[in-house]
């Protein structure tokens, strides 16, 4: 099969997994296998960050690769860790050269039969979620076209993983969004009530609500809900430190308006 066709098919397969209830490990294993098939690398592996930020080996095209990646995590040095840490591609064309700053990892990789390495970040909107490691048995730089293909694989896999996470948590995320929007609405309504009762503009009214919340150690949402529900009278709110709003002011107003 043509290399281009294989590339396109891999990307389509990756994209298809977005609709199905897919298994993340299965998807990533497919990705590492295709890297070997399509990009002419000897081995490929993927590490993803766990919730605590630690990298975990998620998929490897071979057992030797898996062992090497586990070693990388154990030794806390190597291209995948550097790539994840910086969010930028990392490449070393000759692991025997020794100037890569990974003395233990370099020796281990060479012992496993590898000579050169590239690591590509899995990143979306500035959020690095992991890295793709590509190993070859011969020294030298990877062709740019292959690196671009590898990055395309990594990008689609990244969005697949993140969208999958969003889908798995859809109910919770939508509840959060609704809750956040409701909170905003209650605050806007309370601002309106305070503005009307105290003859303030909306910004000043917000200042009154926030000031009351701070000085009584209450959440702004609870103050706003109290105002709307009538359990907290507008007249009982602490005045904000606006000259127009009135009374004692022991601190200069933040704005000149």
């Amino acid at each position, binding site marked *: 099969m043509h290399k281009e066709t294989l590339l396109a098919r891999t990307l389509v397969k990756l994209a298809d997994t977005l*609709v199905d209830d897919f298994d993340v490990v299965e998807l990533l294993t497919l990705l590492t296998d295709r890297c070997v098939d399509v990009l002419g690398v000897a081995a490929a592996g993927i590490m993803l960050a766990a919730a605590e930020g630690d990298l975990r080996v998620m998929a490897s095209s071979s057992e030797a690769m898996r062992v090497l990646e586990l070693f990388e995590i154990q030794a806390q040095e190597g291209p995948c860790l550097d790539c994840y840490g910086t969010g930028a591609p990392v490449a070393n064309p000759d692991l025997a050269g020794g100037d890569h700053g990974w003395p233990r990892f370099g020796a281990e990789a060479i012992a496993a039969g590898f000579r050169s390495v590239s690591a590509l970040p899995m990143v979306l909107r500035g959020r690095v979620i992991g890295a793709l490691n590509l190993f070859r048995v011969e020294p030298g730089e990877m062709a740019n076209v292959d690196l671009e293909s590898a990055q395309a694989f990594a990008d689609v896999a990244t969005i697949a993983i993140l969208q999958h996470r969003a889908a798995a*948590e859809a109910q919770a995320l939508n509840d959060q*969004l609704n809750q956040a929007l409701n909170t905003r609405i209650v605050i806007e309504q309370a601002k309106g009530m305070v503005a009307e009762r105290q003859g303030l503009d909306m910004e000043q009214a917000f200042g009154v609500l926030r000031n009351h919340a701070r000085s009584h150690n209450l959440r702004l949402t609870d103050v706003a809900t109290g105002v709307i529900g009538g359990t907290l009278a507008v007249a009982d709110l602490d005045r904000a430190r606006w000259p127009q709003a009135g009374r004692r002011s022991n601190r200069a107003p933040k704005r000149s308006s």
Partner: protein
Amino acid sequence: MPGERRLRILARLTGGTSGAETSRLCRVCADITGMSGAGIMLMSEAGPRGSLCTTDEVSALIEQLQYDLGEGPCLDAYRLDRPVLEPDIRRPVVPRWLAFSGPALGAGARAVFGFPLRVGSVRFGALNLFRDRPGTLDADQHADALVMADVAAQSILLLQAGAPPGQVAAELEAGADFQYVVHQAAGMVAAQIDVSVGEALVRLHAHAFSHDRPLTDVARDVVGRVTRFDESDGATGSPG
């Protein structure tokens, strides 16, 4: 092949870097389906939340009209949980959206389409597409719109996943119009006539309807202290 469609859309979304996330989402919605413009509205069981993003002024007006009037393709798509297609609002097959259609036509929209936004069983908005000439969506455009709505829905939740607890994601707020002025006005009216904010919202809607004015305009007048509701006839001081 659905995968190819999705891939084409994802490539458009991941490619390029400029612009806010949601405005790019809207732009890709319109481009991929070959429409004049697109917009995304967020909804809840209680009604429309407002507009998340629009590609242009016509789309913005289409969303504003639906928010103000409580009718239109997005609201129906959300309520019915299926695509709602109107290839010609000047000569609709089923008469509907009597208040919405005139101003939408006047703004330059001729065909309007609504697609529900949902992830699994969670439904939270609608994608709105419009075109400046009449005509149905062909099979390809329809399929693209369905995949696009799916990708957009996941993207929106994905953006919210990055928000601090209790807050709307900054990426969702950028370019959005959640109609806060209407809620500010409701708070003011509630204080003026001593009713609940829920009741005040109903009064605002009724006033806008009986004076044939957009709800947002009325709300702005209340907040700007041009209109009050505590005079004898319910609301005075509104010019025109």
